[in-house]
Every structure is written in structure tokens, then in C-alpha cells.
């Protein structure tokens, strides 16, 4: 059974807006229960700040069940906190100890400008998908769903890649701020499916071009992305992307 009176010291990055200079501010939170999620702990802090007529800490979140990809936060140096395969919203306070000091920072990357405090703008991800992360099929053009059998294993591998929630932890974790894992997950997912194979090479080329144009860094296979990915997507998919890209750029037309 857990305690419900942990005392924590939070060092939180506060920044008014994109142009403003940010700095850390220290807050004390008392009566933290081990059953709280990390975000509920921040809710408690914010509730207190609002009741003191201070501005609450801005952080993004939505589904709070680890699937929408909205929440972020670098917690003690770990994107989504120290527990692997877990989003911040599913991280619970039982993994922290009474008296801990916790440092909370936003995703830091030139391509993810800070909006406010811990909130960053991840539009670049949308633009990468828009550059080719789809199959060109209109509504109504589909043939029967069972017309093309797909090997169970292949569908599984595609699903492993498709499970990406677009949160940006890979970029936050990467010392190069590269979004290769994000880009690769979509390229690899669609390249696995026979329906997506048709455009695979072109898709890889376009998405990499967009990735580069957005100002993300270059992958040097450090694998920090995989280590911090809340969906544990493998860098294997980056190799797949590299293959698709090479065959498109060097081979192909």
C-alpha cells in the first residue's frame, strides 16, 4: 500500500512564450499520493497555484491513457520519465520517493519551438506526414478487404511500427534532435503493407526531404530514441527507411 504524504521539490522550466527567456522555478508539493499519476501531481500543483492567484504551469495532455501522444515532459533527464515504455500520463508517483527533487523540462529541439512553459509546437510532424505518410487512395476506391492476403507476421511488424503515437519523445531523447524514428515508423509501417508498397520508395524520399527541411538533426544510430519511445518502436525501422531511401535515390528513377 502506498503513502499519500510524499513531499517533493519540483524544478520546473517556466517560459512565457517562444521569444521569451525561460528559467527554472522551484516549487514544493506536499501530500503527494503514490497512487497519483505524474500529471495528477502537476494538477495538484496547478490547483494550488491558481488558488494563490498565480499562473499555473502549462503542460499538454489529453487522453491520459498513453495513446494520444499529447503529453510530453523530460523528467529528470528522461523523456516521459524514467519508466521505459510508459508515457508521462501513465507514469505514477509510486516510482518516486519522499523528499525527491524532480527536474521537469520541455522537449528541446529547434524544430519544436516552445509555446509556453512545458508546451512545444510539434506541427513539423504533421508536415512530415503530409509530405507522403499516406497511401494515395480515395474513399470508395477500395477492393474487398480480403482481396490481398497479408502474412500474419508482416501485419504484426507493420503494427509494431504503426503503433507510433507521434509524441516526439524520440526527438527529445536524440542528442541530434533527429526525427528519424518518427519518420521511419510511418515509412516502415506503410512499406510493410502491400497496399503501401507501391509508393514506398517515393514516400521515403519525400518524407526524408521534409524531415531535413524541418530542421531535425541527422540520425547517428545512438538508439536513445528507441530507449525512450513510450511505444518501444525499434530502430530496426530506421534501417528499413534507409533501405527504402537508398533504393529510391540511388536505384529507381
Amino acid at each position, binding site marked *: 500500500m502506498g503513502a499519500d504524504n510524499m513531499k517533493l521539490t519540483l524544478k520546473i522550466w517556466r517560459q512565457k512564450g517562444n521569444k521569451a527567456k525561460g528559467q527554472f522555478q522551484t516549487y514544493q508539493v506536499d501530500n503527494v499520493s503514490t497512487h497519483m499519476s505524474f500529471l495528477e501531481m502537476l494538477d495538484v500543483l496547478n490547483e494550488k497555484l491558481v488558488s494563490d492567484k498565480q499562473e499555473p504551469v502549462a503542460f499538454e495532455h489529453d487522453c491520459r491513457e498513453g495513446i494520444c501522444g499529447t503529453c510530453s515532459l523530460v523528467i529528470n533527464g528522461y523523456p516521459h520519465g524514467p519508466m521505459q515504455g510508459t508515457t508521462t500520463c501513465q507514469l505514477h508517483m509510486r516510482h518516486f520517493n519522499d523528499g525527491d527533487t524532480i527536474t521537469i523540462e520541455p522537449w528541446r529541439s529547434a524544430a519544436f519551438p516552445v509555446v509556453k512553459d512545458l508546451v512545444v509546437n510539434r506541427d513539423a510532424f504533421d508536415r512530415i506526414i503530409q509530405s507522403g505518410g499516406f497511401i494515395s487512395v480515395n474513399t470508395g476506391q477500395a477492393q474487398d478487404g480480403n482481396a490481398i492476403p497479408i502474412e500474419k507476421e508482416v501485419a504484426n511488424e507493420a503494427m509494431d511500427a504503426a503503433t507510433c503515437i507521434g509524441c516526439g519523445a524520440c526527438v527529445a531523447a536524440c542528442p541530434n534532435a533527429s526525427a528519424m524514428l518518427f519518420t521511419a515508423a510511418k515509412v516502415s509501417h506503410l512499406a510493410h503493407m502491400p497496399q503501401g508498397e507501391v509508393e514506398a520508395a517515393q514516400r521515403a524520399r519525400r518524407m526524408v526531404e521534409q524531415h531535413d527541411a524541418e530542421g531535425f538533426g541527422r540520425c547517428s544510430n545512438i538508439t*536513445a530514441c528507441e530507449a525512450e519511445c513510450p511505444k518501444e518502436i525499434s530502430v530496426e525501422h530506421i534501417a528499413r527507411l534507409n533501405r527504402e531511401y537508398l533504393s529510391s535515390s540511388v536505384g529507381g528513377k
Partner: protein
Amino acid sequence: MNTWFVRFITSSIGKKVVMALTGLFLISFLIIHLIGNLQLLSGAGGQAFNEYAYFMTHNPLIKATSYGLYASILLHAIQGILLWIKNRQARGSQGYAVKANRTAGASKASYRMGAIGSIILIFLVIHLIQFWYQTHWGSQIETVDYEGWDQPINDLYALVAFTYTNIWMVVFYVVCMIFVGLHLWHGFESAFQTLGLSHEKWTPLVKIVGRVLSVALAAGFAIIPIWMYLNQ
């Protein structure tokens, strides 16, 4: 130049492919280099080594290959520096106050490839001035006569042996070889990943080969100065 080629080579993956290909080429050179250098340990006044050095500097095929080697070193270094700059820009001006460096399989050295590479580059410059420059244009180098040769050849062995009488030189070389080992530890498997050569069955083997190779190369090169210092 072809536009497709420019587009490819300037893209993030294209740049990495250059790093991978040049890197693998340099590793293959290191293997040859080490095998040759092990002649230094054969004693006998260094005849075997000096004859090997003569062969390496006079065989036209090897000479031609050496230009490829110089180009690779330059390309690898320049591209590496450019990537490093680009990646710093991508990271943004504000760094993390606390950052845990967790990886999924790659070595911690992978975080510092730029820094390690820079150290190796500095080492390389010193190394080349010490031996390569001397071999080609230097004044410190003596010649030596061997039976069966109709002209005297450079006594590179003497130069090497003399260099390693200085304990600090030995330490410097050994330390630098540790960095070379770290660089290869990540570099070898990373090159395969970059080239898309990844496979459930074969990638574990690639990793083992890479690790054995990086330890063997680093240890092999490090043993030479130590052995020569101890046997002076």
C-alpha cells in the same frame, strides 16, 4: 553533376551513407595497417617492417589506393564536422539541465562520436607528421642497406623505435587507440544500420564482428608501442 546525386548526397541519409562507406573503408585500411605494423614486433632490426614500408610506398596499385584513403579521411572528417554542426543547430540553443543518456543497444560512445572523432583527427595529424611526412619528405629519417637490395631503403623502423623510447609518446598512442576502439565499437555496427543492412538473423553477428574488430584493432595498435618501449 547530376541533380539526383546532389540531392541524395546532401540529404541527411545521403550524408550518413558517406560516413558509413568511408568509415567502413577506413576500417578495412586499419586492418591492413595493423597487419603490416605487426612486422614491427618481428625484431631483427626491423628489416621485415622496412621492406613492408618500402613495398607500401612504391607499389603503384597501393599508391593509387592511398589517394582514395586520403580522400576518405578528409570526407569522413569534413562530413562528420558538418553533421556535428547541423545536429547542434537541430538541438537548439537551450540544452537540457538534466539529461539521462539511455540507449537501446548502442554504446554510450555513440553519444560522443563527434568528440571522439575529433580526438582521433588530432591524433591522426600528429601521427602523419611523425611518420608519414617523414617517410616521404622528412629529414629525420635514415636509410639502411639490406642484403638482396640494390639500393638503401628508408629505416622507418628506427624512427618508430626511437619515437617509442619516450614513455609519454607511448601513453599518447595507447590512449588514442582507446578512442579508436570506442569509435569503431559504435561506428562499425552503425554503418550497417545506416546502409539499411539490418536483419534479424545477421545483425547480431555484425555487432559481434564489430566489437571483436574494435577491440582487436585498438589492442593490436596499442601493443606495438608498449612492446617496443619494453624491448628497446
